[in-house]
C-alpha cells in the first residue's frame, strides 16, 4: 500500500444529498414538537378533568378575535410560500412583497393576541388561575415564537433586497419557511384544542 492512496481528491456524497441547514432545522423542530407537546399536555389534562369550568371560560373568550387571528396566521403561511416561489422564479421584488406581507400578518397576530390577553385580564383570567396558567403557558410560548419569526422575516427581506436570493439560492427563505409554517401548525392545534374543544 503506498502513501499516495491514504488521501485523495474530494469525497463523493455517500448517500442522497440533504442540505445541512435543512436537516438541522428539521431536527430543531423535532425538539420543539416535544416542548409544545408538554405544555399542551398540561392543558389537556386540565380540560379533561374540568370540562364545565373550561366551557365557562370559553364563553368568556368568544371566538371572533381568535378566529381572525387564525386566518391571519394561515394567510401568513400562504404569503410565506409564495415568497419562496418568487425566489425560485428569480424575482427579488416578489420576495420582499410576500415576505413583507408575512411579517405584517404576523405582527397583527401578536397585537391582537395582546388585545385578547388584556381582555382576559379584565375578565379575571390571569397566571394565578387554575385555567389561566394552563392557557397562557402554551399560547404565550407560541406568541414568542411568532415574534421571533417576524424578526427573522424582516432579516430575510433585508437579504432579499440585497439580492441574495435567486432561483439557484433560496435556501435561506426555505429554512425560515420551515420555522414559520411549524409555528402555524402549532397554532392550528392550539386553536382547536383550547378554543373549540
Amino acid at each position, binding site marked *: *500500500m503506498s502513501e499516495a492512496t491514504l*488521501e*485523495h481528491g474530494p469525497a463523493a456524497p455517500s448517500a442522497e444529498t440533504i442540505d445541512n441547514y435543512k436537516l*438541522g432545522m428539521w431536527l430543531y423542530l423535532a425538539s420543539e*414538537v416535544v*416542548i409544545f407537546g408538554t405544555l399542551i399536555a398540561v392543558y389537556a389534562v386540565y380540560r379533561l378533568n374540568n370540562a364545565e369550568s373550561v366551557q365557562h371560560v370559553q364563553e368568556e373568550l368568544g371566538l371572533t378575535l381568535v378566529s381572525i387571528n387564525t386566518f391571519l396566521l394561515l394567510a401568513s403561511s400562504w404569503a410565506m410560500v409564495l415568497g419562496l416561489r418568487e425566489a425560485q422564479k428569480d424575482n427579488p421584488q416578489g420576495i420582499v412583497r410576500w415576505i413583507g406581507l408575512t411579517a405584517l400578518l404576523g405582527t397583527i397576530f401578536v397585537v391582537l393576541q395582546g388585545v385578547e390577553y388584556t381582555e382576559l385580564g379584565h375578565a379575571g383570567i390571569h397566571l394565578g388561575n*387554575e385555567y389561566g*396558567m394552563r392557557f397562557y403557558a402554551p399560547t404565550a410560548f407560541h406568541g414568542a415564537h411568532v415574534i421571533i419569526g417576524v424578526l427573522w422575516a424582516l432579516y430575510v427581506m433585508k437579504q432579499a433586497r440585497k439580492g441574495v436570493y435567486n432561483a439557484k439560492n433560496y435556501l435561506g427563505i426555505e429554512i425560515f419557511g420551515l420555522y414559520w409554517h411549524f409555528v402555524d401548525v402549532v397554532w392550528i392545534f392550539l386553536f382547536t384544542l383550547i378554543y373549540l374543544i
Partner: protein
Amino acid sequence: MATITATPGLGSRTTEGAAIRAADLLRWSLDHKVIGLQYMASSLFFFIVGGTMAMLIRWELLTPALDLMADGTQYNALMTIHGSVMIFLWIIPMMAGFGNYLVPLMLGAKDMAFPWLNAFAFWLIPPAGVLMIAGWLVGPPEAGWTSYPPLSTLFSPDGQTMWAMSLHLLGVSSILGAINFVVTIRNMRPAGMTIWKMPLFVWAVLATAIIQVLATPFLTGGLTLLILDRTAGTSFFDPGSGGDVLLWQNVFWFYSHPAVYIMILPGFGMVSEVLAVHARKPVFGYRAIGLSSMSIALVGFTVWAHHMFTSLQPALRIPFMITSMIIAVPTGIKIFSWLGTIWGGKIRFTAAMLFALGFITLFVFGGIGGIFLAAVPVDIHLHDTYFVVGHFHFVLFGGSVFLIFAGIYHWFPKMTGRRMNERLGQLHFVTTYIGTFFTFVPQHIAGALGLPRRVAMYDPAFTNINTVISLAAFLLGISSLIFMYNILRSLSHGERVGGNPWRGLTLEWATTSPPPPWNFRGDPVPFDDPYGYGSDESGPYLDAVERRFPAPEEAAGA
C-alpha cells in the same frame, strides 16, 4: 457530502499551527478540536468542583451527627449541587467534548456541520456553571438534583430558581450540540463509509444525539413550568391551587431516565474502540453493538416511572418494571460482545485498556443492581436508600467516568502529540478500582439495611460502614489527584508520538498528532473495515500510516 459550512464570515480559526495552546481554550473558536478541548477542560474543572463537594459530603458523614455543616439545609445544598454538577457539568459535557473532538476526525471531515452553532453550544456552559454555583450566595437549592415540588417550589430559596435556569441553559446547549452531531454524521461521511462501516463511537454518538433531541425538551418544558411556579405566581405543581406534584415527577423522568443513557452510550462507543485497538482484534458483533445502542435509546423512553415506584399510582407500577428489565437484554449483548472482542486477542495492558476492562466488571455490577431496583417489590424497600446511591455511582463512576478515563488515556496522544505516563496510569487505575469498590459496594449494603439517602444525620448503627465508605472515598480523591498530576505532567513531559501510536485503524489516527487546523491534507480514504485487525491488508496500511505520520524522533533519524 463533506461540505465545510465554516465560511470566513463566521469567524476564523484560532489555531495557526497544529498545536492548540491553553490560551486558545479561553477564546471564541470555531475549530471543533478547540471546542472539544474546551468542553473537556471545563468538564474536568467541574469534576474537581463536584468531587471536592463529594469529599465534603463523605467528611460530614463520618459521624452520625452534624459536625462539618451548620445545619441540614447546608448539607442538602451540598448534595444537590454535587449531583447536578457531576451530571450536567461533568459527564454530559465531557461526552460532548469527546464527540466534538473525535467525530469529525473519525469521519475524515474537516469540521462539524455547524461550527458556529458548535461554539455557541459550548459557551452556554460557563454561565450555566456560574448560575449553578452562585445559587449558594442567594440561598442554595436544597431539593436534590431531582427537585421534587412542593419542596422545590414553595419551600426553597432563590438559589432553586438559579438552579433551574442553569439547567435550562445546559439543556439548550445539549440540544444544539446533538442537532450538530446528527447532521455531521448523516452528511459528512467520506466516500465509501456506509453507516455499517462507521466506527462504533460514531454510532454511539448518533444514538445519544437522537435521545438528546427527543428527550431534553421535556426537561426544558418542565423547568419552564417550575420557574413560572417560583416567579410568576402560577401553580402547576402546587396542589393547594389545582396543581399536581406528580406532574413534575413524570416530566422530569421523561427526560432524566433517557438522560442516564445520554451519560453512558458515548462511553459504550469509546470502550468498543479501546478494546479493539488494545486487544488487537476486531470488535465482536459490530452490527449487534451498533443496533443495541439504538434499541437502548428507544426502550429508554419507556421506563421513566421506575424512579417513582413509591409515588406512582400502584396500578401503573408493574408495566414499568417489565420495560426496565428489558433494557438488560441489549445491554447484555454489548457486554458479551466486548468479552468476545478480548477473547482470543493479544491484550496490551495500557492504562486505557485497564480502565476499559475495569469498566466491564464494575458496570455489570451496577447494572445488576439496576435490575434489583427494577423489581417493584424490592424497590419498594430500596427506593431512596443508599442502595440506589450505590447503584448509580457504580454505573456513573464505575461506568461513565471509567470510560472517560479510558478515553483520555487512549486519545490524549492524538490531542497533544504526547503519551500519558503509563506507570502513573496504572497506579491511578489500581487506586480508583479499589476506591470505587469499597466506596460504593458498602453503600448498597447500608441502603438495604435501612440507611436512607440525602441525610446529614443518621442512625448511629451505621457509623462503621459509613466510616469505611468515607475512607474509600478519600482514596478516590487521592487517585483523582494522581490523574490530574499525570495530565498536567504529560502535557509538557509526555513521550512524543507520531500520528498513530496505538496502530489504530479508524481515521482519526491517519493524520498528525495533534491534527492540523483542517484535520487532514486532502480527503482521507478510510480503511475499508474500521476494526480489521489481524487481516492481511491492515498491516501494510498501518505501516503506510506510520511512515506517513512518523513519531518526531524517527523523523529526525530518517
